[in-house]
Every structure is written in C-alpha cells, then in structure tokens.
C-alpha cells in the first residue's frame, strides 16, 4: 500500500532521514520505534507532504505521492494524527470531527462513521459541544484519533499517541487502536517512543535511530532480537 524507497530528508544542511525504506501492506499494523530525534516525526511529515524530501520515492497505492500537494493527500485516504494532538482548540468536539470528515469519502461515510467513533471513545460523545481546547490531554488524543478516523482513511498514521499522557490512559488508547485495527481492518502506521507497547501490537516493526533504519522485521523477529530486548525492552 505504502512504499518508501531510499528517502533522504534534510532541514537546511541537517540530515534528518537518510536512506529510509519502509513498506506498509494493506491491513497491516506497522510500528516505527526509536528514541527522540530519530526522525520519526519527520518521516510522517514527509508522507503527509508538510516536509519535502531531498531525494527518494514514496508510492501510495501505486501512485507517486510526492507529486501530490499536501492538502490533497488526505483525499487519497491517508489520515495523519499528528504528534501532540493538534486539535482545533477553538472549535467544538463535533466541529473537530466534522473537519476530519472534510474528505470526499469522509463526507459520504459520515453517517455511519460518527456513531463508530463515538462508540470507540464514549467520552467524546459526552463532550460533543465542548471546545476541544478545554479537553484533557487524553481526551484530546482520542479526539485527534477520532478526527483521523472520520476521514474514512485507508491508512491511519499515528504519531506518538502516548505523548505526555498517564500510563493508564496510554494503555486505554493503545487498546482502542488495536480494536480499530482488528475490527475494522484499518491499516495502521504507528510511530512511538514507547517501544514495548508499540512492538507488542504490531505485525511488522522498524527501528529508527538517528535517521536510519537500523533494524526491521516481523513482530516475532523483533521482540526476540537480543539487541532490541536489551536496548528498548529492558530485558
């Protein structure tokens, strides 16, 4: 579904990603893990078109994604749930979800997706007419994910949904993400610093360090790898 080949991204002269290749197959749950500053968010921004790469290729459903302007990539079925939530603070919870459904497919499927989202995150239903900026961090994260789902995406990209949240809330959110993946067959690309949780739920994982993919493989290969266990899983 999503194919990235030898992607190089630089900010000014500073290299953020070098020679990154990555594959996401339809229906898979792919996790990209790594420490702070590894280039995970840059990778997402490049897929969304907010950052332009120096070289490399991104193809999505066989189409050259780099030729598509940023605001039209959402129309192709890519939903980016950004790092730090980034909800529309001055708009209500419902308006935020409506903005998610700004895509053609999102508008068509609004009637059946809205109940799904509200069932997934009942707290959003309770707070539907509250301003998004007044929600707690966890609720904002749920809203951001809900907004992503509202666009009726084929690929849901989640950038560090655990950021700044209490462990119990993180567990709940990860559980919801897995639920969406399993029950709705949504393809998920997740970027996380919380390696243990992210690897636990993925089909396939990539370890990113200082802009390079240092390891990749299926779930079982990665969690049983000695280096991953020592460096990230604390075993």
């Amino acid at each position, binding site marked *: 579904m999503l194919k990235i080949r030898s992607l190089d991204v630089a900010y000014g002269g500073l290299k953020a990603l070098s020679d990154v290749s990555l594959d996401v197959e339809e229906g898979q749950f792919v996790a990209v893990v790594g420490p702070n500053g590894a280039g995970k968010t840059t990778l997402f921004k490049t897929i*969304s*078109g*907010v950052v332009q790469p120096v070289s490399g290729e991104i193809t999505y459903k066989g189409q050259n994604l780099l030729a598509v302007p*940023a*605001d*039209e*990539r*959402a*129309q192709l079925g890519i*939903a*980016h*749930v*950004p790092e*730090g*939530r*980034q*909800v*529309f*603070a*001055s*708009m209500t919870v419902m*308006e935020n979800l*409506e*903005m*998610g459904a*700004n*895509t053609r497919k999102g508008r068509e499927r609004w009637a059946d997706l809205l109940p799904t989202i509200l069932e997934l995150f009942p707290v959003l239903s309770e707070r539907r007419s509250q*301003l998004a*900026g*007044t929600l707690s961090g966890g609720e*904002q994260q749920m809203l951001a994910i809900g*907004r992503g789902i509202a*666009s009726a995406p084929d690929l849901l990209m989640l950038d560090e949904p655990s950021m700044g949240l209490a462990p119990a809330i993180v567990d709940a959110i990860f559980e919801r993400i897995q639920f969406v993946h399993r029950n709705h067959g949504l393809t998920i690309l997740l970027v996380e610093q919380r390696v243990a949780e992210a690897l636990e739920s993925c089909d396939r994982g990539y370890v990113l360090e200082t802009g390079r993919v240092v390891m990749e493989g299926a779930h079982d290969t990665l969690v049983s790898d000695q280096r991953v266990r020592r460096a990230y899983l604390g075993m």
Partner: protein
Amino acid sequence: MDDLKWMLVDFFQALAAGLLVGGTYGLMCVGLGIIFGVMRVVNFAQGDFMMLGMYAAYYLVTGFGVLTFLGPYAGPIAGAILAGPIVFVIGWLLHRYLLGRVTGARVVSAEAEGHYAQIIMTLGFALVITNGGLILFGSQPISLQTPMSRESWEIGLIFLNQARAIAFVLSVLFAIGLYLFLTQSNLGKTLRAAADNPIAAAYVGINVDRSHRIAFGLGVGITAIAGGLIASTQSFQPYIGFDFVIVMYAGVVLGGMGSILGAFWGGLTIGLVQQMSTLILPYQLQNTAIFVVFLLIIFFRPQGMFGRIWERT
C-alpha cells in the same frame, strides 16, 4: 420637571445615536475580528481598506453614476454593499501575491509565527494605500450626500438619522450573516480550522493558503461595507483609516479575541461609550472616554467581554 424631561431626552438621544453608530463600528470590528482575532494576523491596513470601501461606495454612486438609476435611497445602500466585493478582490490579490508569503502553514515554525513580517508588510500596505489614495482621490474631504444623510425619523422626541439607522440595520444583518456563515457552513468551518491550526488543517485536507486568502478578503470586505455605510453619514479623506483602525482594534480586544460575536459587541460598546460620553464630557474627550472604558474592561476581564480562555496546545 422640565429639566428632568430634557435630561432624559438627551440621554435617550445619546443612547440611540450610540447604538446606531455602534452598530456600524460593530460590523467594522467583525471584519477585523476575522483577520486579527481568528487568523491572528496583525493588519495595520484594516482602516485603509475601510477607506477604500468609502471611496468605492462614493465613486459607484457619484463618479461613475452606475447607481444613479437606483435612486437616491437604494443607490447609496447598493454602493456600500458593492464596496464589499470590490475590496474583497483587492484583499484577495494582496494576500495571494504578498501577505500569503508571511501567513499560514509555512510560518508556524518561524519566529513569533511570522508576526514581525506581517506587521511590517501590513504597515507597508497602510502607507501605500493611504498615500496612493491621496494621489488618486486628493486630500479634499468629501462625503456621500444623500437625502437620507439629512433626514431623520422621529420617534417621540428622539431623532434617528435615516442614513445611520439604515446603516445600523444593514450592519446587524451582515454581522449575523457572517456569524452564521462561519459557524454553520462547511466552508466557514474550514476557514476557522485553517486559522486555528494550519498544520492540522492541512492534515485533514484543507487548502490552508486558499482558506487564509478567503478569510483575509472576507475580513477586509466586511470592513469595507461598514466604510461604505459610514460614507453617507460623515465626510472623509484618505487619512480617515487611521482614526478607525484604533476603534477597530479596541473593539476586537474588548469583545474578546477570536470571538466574532464578541467583536460586534465590542464595536457596539465603543459606539455607545463614544456617544454617551458627550452627555457628561466635552466633545473632544470622546476618544478618551473610549480608552478609559477599554482599560477598565481589560483590567477586570483581560480575556475581553466574550473571550474564552483555552489552553493552546
């Protein structure tokens, strides 16, 4: 007894005048509210766009005579309303080719979110438009004299200037229309989303540059309509924008940043204070009174009358 009666008449006369003037101020503030309160662009030239609206209305009605066939009543009203689309296009083009370079998604990570560049650029617009106006229109104060400007409706002992009363009604209608557009229509909501969080807006498939352009055009266009309405109630020259830009910023901050309805109430409050102050203060202290009230409100309610506090994340 008679003294008391005349005091009351004076009071209600000032109240009526304040409401009528304030309504137009309110519409003006709503225009700036979209640009400053919602998009967070500091537009120094807002008053000058209003001035362009005044001259647009003036030339539509008198100069080109295109509106003479509508008669002395409908003509000036149509002229004021048409000033909106004209200034919308000017604003749209300025944003497309100049201001767009320092607003929107590409400057969120810039220092102070690009505010410095915006301030310099809009200050430049203000200087160019004012002085361009001086060359094109001359410095002679003019006014759009219509029968409405001179006639009044009498309600009991209170006089309502017709031009001002009509301006008030139209201002309220336009403000309500704009409010409904921004809160109910899909395009209106995407404009607010693009202003609220440009990056997230791009992620949900909103063309942020286009949204900002429409919002900017709309903001200056609405203020221009208010200018067109004022054109038949007072005389003006190319420097008039400066007098009003202060009123507008005070109104928007008073009403509460980011609140469109608040901006309208802010403008209305300023009109009321300005007119009511003449009851007890010399005429020259009108603007002083505005700022004393402004300071008091900001002191006791820093978020403005209708401002909402939320955590920006």
